[in-house]
């Protein structure tokens, strides 16, 4: 059974790109509970491993991102509002009027992103620029705002983790797609840490920061551990005019932009997903993904890379939507294929 309570904890933790501590702590704690090593790398990645009993075995790395979109406090206004610099939020329209959490000096602060009321903007329906937006955390003076949320403080969306839809089989939350990928890896770690059957390869787990700002991502741990192959678990966007009900599987692309992915790995994963009836095609209108950057970087470093993309609607917003059965089926399929995966 997939542990959705762990996914809830991961998704509701505040961990924008550049400050992933809260999620990292949950991951380290979970790996420790499972009796697995949890090593922190200097760039903020967490790595773990389940070793094969064969000392000459090759190694496979499963990789996911720990971060979420958010913002940093750029400056303060005289009357105590926070001006913002976005971290991976692709569109100012996705911030306007939203609830946010600011990671202040003395703890988390609740707030929202202000908007000029429609009553006053009727003749000026332009889309707000990032420079027009501000966070209101209730501070009343510049001094109070500077004290509680100094320049450089991180912030992210605030959003409940809720199940909804048919049989409560859908989840709505912030930071869902990245944290679902982390939860898939932790579920696989749980499975193989409790099995006596030896894997034919060393299985590394890589939880990488800063994917939303396309920085170190997965390539740093790849450089450090040099696995023989890598499977990145990330997301693709369900188009705006399709329901999340309509996409019942994950994608395993053969190409990432112009870069071909590892044909052998991708084919084996596609076959396993086809057998389980959970292989989906990425719609042509789907938005770009942050794992592209990692994959491109990893390819440049000579890695053999495949990607598993979980379907998500409203990606990188306060209200991402995913199907529970897709998350758990992908996990089951990976648990099933990994012992016989030829790398």
């Amino acid at each position, binding site marked *: 059974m997939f542990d959705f309570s762990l996914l809830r904890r991961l998704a509701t933790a505040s961990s924008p790109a550049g400050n992933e501590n809260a999620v990292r702590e949950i991951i380290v704690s979970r790996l420790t509970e499972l009796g697995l090593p949890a090593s922190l790398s200097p760039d903020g990645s967490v790595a773990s491993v389940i070793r094969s009993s064969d000392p000459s075995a090759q190694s496979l790395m499963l990789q996911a991102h720990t971060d979420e979109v958010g913002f940093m406090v750029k400056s303060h*206004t005289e*009357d105590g*509002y926070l001006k913002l610099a976005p971290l991976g939020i692709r*569109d100012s*329209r*996705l911030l*306007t*009027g*939203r*609830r946010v959490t600011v990671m202040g000096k003395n703890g988390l*602060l*609740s*707030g*929202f*992103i*202000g*908007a*000029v*009321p*429609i*009553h*006053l*903007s009727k003749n000026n*329906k332009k*889309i*707000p620029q990032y420079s*027009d937006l*501000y966070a*209101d*955390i*209730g*501070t*009343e003076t510049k001094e109070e705002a500077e004290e*509680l949320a100094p320049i450089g403080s991180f912030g992210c969306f*605030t959003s*409940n983790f*809720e199940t*909804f*839809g*048919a049989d409560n*089989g*859908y989840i*709505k939350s912030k930071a869902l797609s990245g944290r679902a990928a982390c939860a898939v890896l932790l579920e696989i770690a749980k499975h193989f840490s409790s099995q006596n059957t030896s894997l034919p390869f060393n299985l590394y787990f890589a939880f990488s920061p800063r994917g939303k700002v396309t920085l170190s991502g997965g390539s740093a741990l790849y450089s450090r551990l040099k696995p023989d192959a890598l499977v990145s678990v990330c997301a693709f966007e369900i188009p*705006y*005019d399709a*329901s*999340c*009900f*309509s996409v019942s599987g994950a994608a395993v692309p053969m190409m990432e932009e112009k870069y071909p992915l590892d044909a052998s790995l991708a084919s084996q994963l596609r076959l396993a997903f086809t057998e389980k009836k959970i292989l989906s095609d990425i719609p042509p209108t789907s938005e770009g993904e942050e794992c592209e950057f990692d994959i491109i970087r990893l390819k440049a470093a000579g890695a053999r890379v495949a990607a598993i993309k979980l379907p998500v*609607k*409203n990606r990188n*917003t*306060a*209200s991402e*939507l995913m199907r529970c059965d897709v998350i758990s089926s992908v996990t089951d399929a990976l648990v099933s294929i990994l012992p016989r995966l030829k790398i």
Partner: protein
Amino acid sequence: MNYLEILTSLVSAMTVSGFEKVSSESLCRLLCRFDFDSVSCDRLGNIIIRKSPELQKSAIVLDAHLDEIGFRVREICGSLLRLSPVGGIDTVILPASEVTVHGKRDLLGVFSLPDGEGEVKLDSLFVDPGLSEDELKKVVSIGDGVSFRAPITQMINSRLVGRAFDDKALAAALICAVAEVPRSELAFDVHLIISTREEIGGAGAAYAALCADPVGAVICDVNFAASPGISEDESGKLGGGPMVSLSAVTDREMTDAILAIADKNSISVSPVVESTSTGTNASHVYVAGHGIPCAVVSMPEAGMHTASECISTRDAESLIRLIKLTVCDVPLAESLTKREVAFNV
């Protein structure tokens, strides 16, 4: 009497304009436990709360509106919904916003992202409730109401952020004020109207005020809080106390009396000039029946008409005090009654 408890009950109720009756009867039952003479619901769904003094006195109407902006289901497109707006909806805030679809049962739905960049058009946004087309059609019908969905959260400096505080924050304050005021001190026969349809024109308050036949009305609604992009002279500071409108559609004598009551009792208030329109029920109540002198007292609110409307509970406390003093003010009652009696043509 807990302001936050009452506000939470009001905000939990589905009251998109035109749907108030769905909730007004259950809210009436809830309000019956407070110290009122009667709580009833009229044919438009307005909630009428009465509290009368021991001796017969002229009636005063206190009004705050129950309804909220929202949507109606316009079209079921496969597994998705397309909506029509009810009231002033800023489409910029809609992408990825959460709503409750009030079908045969309540459904969580989430707006899609917009198609392309630039202005967001409601026509190009779909709400996804996570159901198959068949199941969706069993639960949802064309015309069903849809409201914004967001929790109430406490912020620092006595701020609250939530949905539909316009105008439930004021309605909750008026309920507290009228429940707390001793009957023996009332200078008026109080008719508290929690009115319907303000966001689509103000018909609810006009009808209910007409039925009360008052000598005056105090219309309470939110007003713009000072924040970036809003000029200082058309807004009030959150936490700085209630705002009092100076307008051609409000009664200056009544307004001055309320300002004097605030001054005498050290209640901080900000006058705000709204020369030709207050954007409240006052425009409709003022011309109801034989004409009803109105004053408009408001509370500053940030994020108006979004799912993150923000008020200060300090302002709510000040408003409660101001209203209690106003309905007990004998000179104001005498002055308004005298004006009514003086008309003897």
